[in-house]
């Protein structure tokens, strides 16, 4: 009896528990649905009052039921309930912290007000330069932070300064001039022996704490290059997702011109007027185009052809001459008298900066000669500047590599001798710049000369120094050119306009315009230099942050004080990915020389973290070999052999080929569907008139059976009212809405 009674009781209890659990699950589901309503509230196209009412109701429902649920869950002791309770609490905490983090991020975004001001004065195109600048700034911040955390700080804190040979600390003779402005300007003196440059880092395999610094240096550099690629690609993917699949711009020209022509950001009368005239002109052009679609695109007279040929020839000459100048200048810097005066020391950087400022202007003048449509002209101009920049960087790099080779051979000679002489217990013999021997110089007198001479031969530091100097010089020249071309010109025009024989504001000097394309290219070029120098100068991103920071303020000041809005307005977004493409190409081309240096060049034997290795990348391979057991070595060597790499490459090519053909077939499908749509529309056009007549006749005849379908209609209405909510929450929204409707009626 007892047993059966107990059994019955148990059963009852079990059933009760099950019921509780089931109702708890149902309540949980209900609460989840209401939460979804809360989450999707912002996507509803309702006015704020209604949104707030529904939101509050849903929230109070959640609060009540969640509270009750939690209480109930708290009372029960089963693992499932405890888990559910934990999940509830966790979800709440996550939601809260996500919101707080989002608030923090939006709080930290800098220059929002400044960009907004520019945007309202000049439209979104000019502002896109500044948002691009800000994005590049973030990238550089990440680069700097990673270098600081993984390379610079461990090096400064953990390495032993006595053990690192000639790397750290100035020679006593150098100390006298180490902090002079002249020395600092050349990044010599204390700056040369600081963590900014490669030569400072020591080659100890491990610090006392067990941090493998050379490995960390190499790995951080590698990861940061990959990060740069991924960051650009992610941004591009995001942009192209925004623009959907619209490869043919001319598909809905008129509709798009009308409905997206006005930039809602414009808040300046002059920009507004420019935009209006641009839209009017755009419509007129489009109408003309529509009318004369069959006409040949452009009549090429002999005159125009000659002009264009001449223009391209001129540009080619200019490009060649710039390459020649760069080669010449680097050659001159290896001559013995290269250190003689300020001009000779800064020749390379000054000339490079001058070329990158003057030549684009000449290109623009040549562009006028060609008589292209302004849009086409801009494209040519951009392409030419890009080629100029790349050509300059590459000639510089090749010339520098030539210098590096010369330095390496001298270093080799030195090393051989130093080994010989150390064994014979003597000092290093002097090795003149031309390689002649000066035998018999006393030890003490020559030691400074020897050491400083040796220190100068750290080619990696030299490489970094060149690029750092280039970055700084570029900043100086940009600032000067902004001052002259924009500021002084604007002041001149404003002051002398009253007493001049022609209208200065309308004809010759005018006020400067903000050249978006050129300025973005300048940023791209600058970033390219940073990527190129980053590996041999971990401090370069930090310097670049400083530069970008200054540049943002200078440029925005110049734009707001002395520029006028563009007359021809180019839209920002369409060229968005174009600039990112440029950046990506730049990054790729800038990693090539660095990769070459890592794989082919021999690092200096007396400075930098890789001085023990015969090639820089050996730090990676040797660490890998050390870390893996011997039995795996053959696997590694097999994986790295052509036997695996070539099939892998082939596989990759096949995959790329497959994807390309897939995307092209998809594109074909899209065009097919488009033509089909058009055809159907034409067919529809014929039918509509008939249908209209029929419909008119039907409308007279049929009284609506509205009552019967009213419930279906209500549901359809709700569907319409909640177009963006996910389907799940649609089941619950009507309940809340119905309640709301009742409330409304009552209040009325």
């Amino acid at each position: 009896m007892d047993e059966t009674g107990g059994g019955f009781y148990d059963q009852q209890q079990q059933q009760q528990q099950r019921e509780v659990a089931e109702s708890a699950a149902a309540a949980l589901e209900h609460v989840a649905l209401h939460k979804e309503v809360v989450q999707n509230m912002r996507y509803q196209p309702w006015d704020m009052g209604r949104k707030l009412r529904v939101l509050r109701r849903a929230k109070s429902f959640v609060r009540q039921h969640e509270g009750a649920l939690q209480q109930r869950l708290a009372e029960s002791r089963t693992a499932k309930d405890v888990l559910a309770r934990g999940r509830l609490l966790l979800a709440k905490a996550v939601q809260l912290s996500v919101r707080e983090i989002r608030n923090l991020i939006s709080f930290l975004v800098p220059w929002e007000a400044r960009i907004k001001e520019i945007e309202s004065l000049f439209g979104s195109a000019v502002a896109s330069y500044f948002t691009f600048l800000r994005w590049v700034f973030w990238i550089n911040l990440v680069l700097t932070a990673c270098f600081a955390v993984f390379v610079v700080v461990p090096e400064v804190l953990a390495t032993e300064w006595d053990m690192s040979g000639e790397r750290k600390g100035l020679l006593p003779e150098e100390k006298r001039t180490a902090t002079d402005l002249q020395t600092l300007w050349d990044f010599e003196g204390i700056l040369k022996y600081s963590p900014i440059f490669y030569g400072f880092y020591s080659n100890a395999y491990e610090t006392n704490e067990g941090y493998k610094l050379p490995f960390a240096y190499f790995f951080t550099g590698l990861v940061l290059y990959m990060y740069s690629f991924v960051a650009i690609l992610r941004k591009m993917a995001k942009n192209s997702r925004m623009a959907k699949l619209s490869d043919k711009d001319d598909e809905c020209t008129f509709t798009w011109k009308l409905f997206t022509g006005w930039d809602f950001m414009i808040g300046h009368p002059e920009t507004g007027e420019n935009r209006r005239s641009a839209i009017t002109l755009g419509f007129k052009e489009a109408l003309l185009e529509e009318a004369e679609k069959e006409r040949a695109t452009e009549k090429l007279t002999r005159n125009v052809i000659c002009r264009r040929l001449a223009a391209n020839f001129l540009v080619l000459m200019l490009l060649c001459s710039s390459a020649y100048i760069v080669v010449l200048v680097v050659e001159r810097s290896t001559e013995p008298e290269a250190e003689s005066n300020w001009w000779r020391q800064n020749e390379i950087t000054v000339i490079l900066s001058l070329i990158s400022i003057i030549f684009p202007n000449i290109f623009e003048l040549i562009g006028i000669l060609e008589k292209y449509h302004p849009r086409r002209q801009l494209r040519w101009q951009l392409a030419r500047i890009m080629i100029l920049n790349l050509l300059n960087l590459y000639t510089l790099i090749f010339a520098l590599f030539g210098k590096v080779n010369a330095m390496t051979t001298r270093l080799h000679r030195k090393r051989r001798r130093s080994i010989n002489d150390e064994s014979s217990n003597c000092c290093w013999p002097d090795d003149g710049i031309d390689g002649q021997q000066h035998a018999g110089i006393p030890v003490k007198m020559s030691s400074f000369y020897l050491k400083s001479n040796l220190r100068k031969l750290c080619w990696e530091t030299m490489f970094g120094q060149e690029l750092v100097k280039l970055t700084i010089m570029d900043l100086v020249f940009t600032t000067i050119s902004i001052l002259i071309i924009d500021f002084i010109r604007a002041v001149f025009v404003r002051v002398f306009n009253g007493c001049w024989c022609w209208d200065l504001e309308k004809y010759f000097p005018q006020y400067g315009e903000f050249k978006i394309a050129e300025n973005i290219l300048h940023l791209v070029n600058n970033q390219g230099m940073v990527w190129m120098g980053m590996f041999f100068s971990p401090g370069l991103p930090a310097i670049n942050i400083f530069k970008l920071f200054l540049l943002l303020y200078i440029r925005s000041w110049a734009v707001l004080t002395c520029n006028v809005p563009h007359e021809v307005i180019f839209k920002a977004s369409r060229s968005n990915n174009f600039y990112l493409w440029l950046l990506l190409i730049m990054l790729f081309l800038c990693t090539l020389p660095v990769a070459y240096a890592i794989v082919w060049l021999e690092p200096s034997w007396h400075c930098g973290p890789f001085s023990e290795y015969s090639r820089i990348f050996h730090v990676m391979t040797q660490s890998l070999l050390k870390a893996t057991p011997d039995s795996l070595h053959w696997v590694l060597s097999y994986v790295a052999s052509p036997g695996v790499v070539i099939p892998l490459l082939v596989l990759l090519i096949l995959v790329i080929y497959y994807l390309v053909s897939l995307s092209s077939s998809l594109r074909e499908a899209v065009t097919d569907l488009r033509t089909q749509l058009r055809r159907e529309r034409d067919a529809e056009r014929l039918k509509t008139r008939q249908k209209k007549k029929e419909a008119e006749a039907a409308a007279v005849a049929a009284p609506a059976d509205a009552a019967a379908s009213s419930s279906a209609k209500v549901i359809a209405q709700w569907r319409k009212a909640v177009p963006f909510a996910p389907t799940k929450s649609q089941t619950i929204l009507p309940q809340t809405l119905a309640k709301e409707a009742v409330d409304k009626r009552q209040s009325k």
Partner: protein
Amino acid sequence: MGNKVATFTEQQLEDYQDTTFFGRKEILRVHRRFRELQPELVPRTMSLEATRDLRLPKSLINTLPELKENPFRDRILKVFSSNGSGDLSFDDFLDLLSVFSEHAPRELKLHYAFRIYDMDGDGVVGPGDLKAVIGRLCQHERGLTPAEIDAVVEQILDEADVDCDGHLTAMEFSHVVARAPDFVQTFHIRI
């Protein structure tokens, strides 16, 4: 952080963050802009009633630099005004800026764009609406001739009016405009 306690209750801020695409900082900035329009009328501390019922006249809101140059400003105010008069309460103002903000999805922007361009409010964008939009967008002197305007309207209907009933429904509108590469960028007001 002292500011946030003074202007809104924590509850209000939470609700606003749930109903708009703004964070706390932006909501407070919107309030500041709203208050700057008429400091003597808009209180520093916004109660629930004040956010809903206290309306600023449209003539005042039109002076905002963000709207001053906009040819559709009266339409925007009308669409977002909860009582249809064009005068905005703080709630309406916040709603407006939220829809025009960067994070608002394309679909939501399209919905409101359609209502803004539907000048006569009959639920479709007809030839009359199109003509009015063109008139507002183009210059007054050196503008398009009536014949040209007619041609443009015809072209637009040809491109976008899928079922050929002579006007654009919301579906047709969003179908065409959603594919425009610039729509999201240009239908945007930064506050």
